[in-house]
């Protein structure tokens, strides 16, 4: 007998956890899991529930249905490269075909309106039209909410002429949910007059993809320098640091801001209070009113000390965020944090405070885990694992590990001096007791680690591999 086989034999005999006779009441209770939201977290949870159920020979007991308003997912990751024309929306579009055919996952295209968690019913508009109907044929006994974010634009006023914008929000596209918003912002950039300016405003934390606004400012600065000579980009940050470098990836973005993107104007400690639209000839200008976010500027480099305004043609306003409306309504105030914004969950399983309901991805309240697709993918696996352990009477893993990794383009392929370069940021997390308050949660095991050295072409090449692999892990 080979050593490997011998060890395997011992393992199966001793642990008895892989070859399951399932015992107890759970054996008679098949799982009917509904996943609302087929993005990075939701699609991963659905896939791994089925993949692992098969490996455990439990697949006959595990039915999974994804409900999403779209039968295609457009990746937020890499979508800044659509703004610069380096990628298209089609490049970033994924379907649920593999999840359906390879893993036997059901898919329903619908807008969910409400959920009866007590009885396991989901109501909404099938194919996003008509009246609300019952969407699931059999009641769920586990519900996973993976609905992402919604926006709270109440922190600033918007006043644009209705004669110019039928929908005033189109004057300030956030492009923080990839798809039509990305195209809208791209078109505004392409059509703007050279020499006019662009602004990107960063929301208060927490928000989806912490490095994202800095990445966007970098690649747009590169694009503007070539495509719109004389144009500047303002990056408006409510946060501030002692040395004026970005709070996220200070080395990489700090280097890029100081040495590469001379047309990027970075303003810290600046909070947006109003956007006022105006017309001058055929140009649609917006004036952004800014006030100091803190009365105490931390630096004299770029921290705003008194109110000011910037006038731009393209205003990419990324509003304050919160858990998606559906998740907040399903959980109710008792299931949300004190601000009523994010879902309270047990980070060992992503169980919410509402029975049978789990929440994963950007909707959750987490002291340390960021909001992003990569870590949402891992949270989904922890959630799927917890659900399957419950089914098979195996104890919950009490110290799960998750990781965050994010590559960010810092220059574009338009850059004649540097070519396309990228950096990365990564961190690992493990569940445990937080010594600061004796509460158990996901703790940061490492500090945030930036790619060492400078942004590089090699990192850019690695970024492609990372993105390809990650998306395969979700949708293939």
């Amino acid at each position, binding site marked *: 007998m080979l050593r490997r086989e011998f060890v395997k034999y011992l393992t199966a005999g001793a642990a008895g956890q892989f070859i399951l006779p399932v015992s107890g009441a759970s054996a008679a209770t098949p799982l009917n899991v509904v996943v609302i939201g087929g993005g990075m977290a939701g699609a991963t949870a659905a896939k791994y529930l089925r993949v692992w159920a098969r490996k455990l020979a439990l697949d006959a007991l595990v039915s999974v249905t994804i409900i999403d308003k779209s039968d295609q997912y457009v990746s937020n990751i890499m979508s800044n490269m659509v703004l610069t024309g380096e990628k298209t929306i089609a490049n970033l579009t994924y379907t649920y075909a593999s999840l359906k055919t390879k893993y036997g996952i059901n898919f329903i295209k619908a807008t969910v309106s409400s959920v009866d968690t007590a009885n396991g019913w989901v109501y909404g508009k099938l194919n996003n039209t008509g009246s609300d109907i019952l969407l699931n044929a059999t009641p769920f006994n586990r519900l996973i909410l993976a609905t992402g974010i919604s926006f709270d634009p109440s922190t600033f006023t918007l006043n644009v002429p209705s004669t110019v914008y039928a929908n005033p929000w189109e004057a300030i596209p956030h492009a923080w949910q990839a798809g039509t918003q990305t195209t809208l912002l791209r078109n505004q950039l392409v059509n703007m007059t050279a020499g006019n300016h662009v602004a990107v405003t960063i929301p208060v934390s927490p928000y989806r993809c912490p490095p994202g606004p800095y990445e966007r400012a970098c690649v747009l600065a590169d694009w503007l320098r070539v495509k719109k000579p004389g144009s500047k980009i303002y990056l408006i940050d409510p946060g501030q640091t002692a040395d004026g470098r970005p709070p996220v990836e200070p080395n990489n973005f700090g280097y890029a801001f100081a040495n590469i993107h001379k047309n990027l104007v970075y303003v810290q400690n600046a909070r947006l209070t109003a956007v006022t639209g105006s017309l001058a000839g055929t140009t649609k200008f917006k004036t952004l009113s800014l006030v100091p976010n803190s009365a105490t500027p931390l630096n004299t480099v770029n921290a705003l000390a008194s109110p000011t305004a910037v006038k731009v043609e393209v205003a990419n306003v990324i509003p304050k965020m919160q858990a998606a409306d559906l998740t907040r309504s399903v959980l109710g105030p008792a299931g949300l944090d004190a601000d009523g914004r994010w879902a309270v969950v047990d980070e060992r399983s992503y169980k919410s405070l509402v029975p049978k309901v789990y929440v994963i991805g950007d909707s959750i309240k987490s002291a340390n885990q960021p909001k992003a697709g990569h870590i949402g993918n891992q949270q989904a696996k922890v959630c799927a694992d917890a659900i399957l352990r419950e089914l098979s009477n195996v104890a919950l893993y009490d110290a799960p590990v998750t990781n965050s990794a994010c590559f960010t383009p810092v220059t574009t392929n338009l850059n004649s001096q540097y070519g396309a370069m990228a950096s990365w940021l990564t961190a*690992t997390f493990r569940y445990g007791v937080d010594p600061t308050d004796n509460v158990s949660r996901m703790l940061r095991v490492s500090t945030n680690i930036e790619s060492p050295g400078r942004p590089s072409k090699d990192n850019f090449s690695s970024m492609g591999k990372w993105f390809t*692999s990650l998306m395969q892990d979700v949708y293939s």
Partner: protein
Amino acid sequence: MTKSRLLACCLALAGVLLATDAGAYDLNNGRLLASNCTQCHSTNVLPKTGGYDSLVGESYSEIYGELREFKQKFNATTKTCTENDPKECLMAVHAMPYTDKEMQDIAWYLSQR
């Protein structure tokens, strides 16, 4: 084979024996923890097209040895990476959370695929 690789293999072999003596690898735990690897490294769950190195076909000893090697490149006291090579540093961050037993469980799970 470099000296460090040889050392890693020896340690890995010791790990096999220890884990065997201890009774078992935990395949449930290995499954969960190893899923942190599949975001970037192809396993037999995934098609292998254009991503990072596949772990398919790697032995227990190889995977366990590599994990140990990477973990040693992270300074647990300062919580910083001691490597200047970006790729090595990235993997050091990802290997460092795991206990030795968890690395064994991960290696065992992945080597069985």
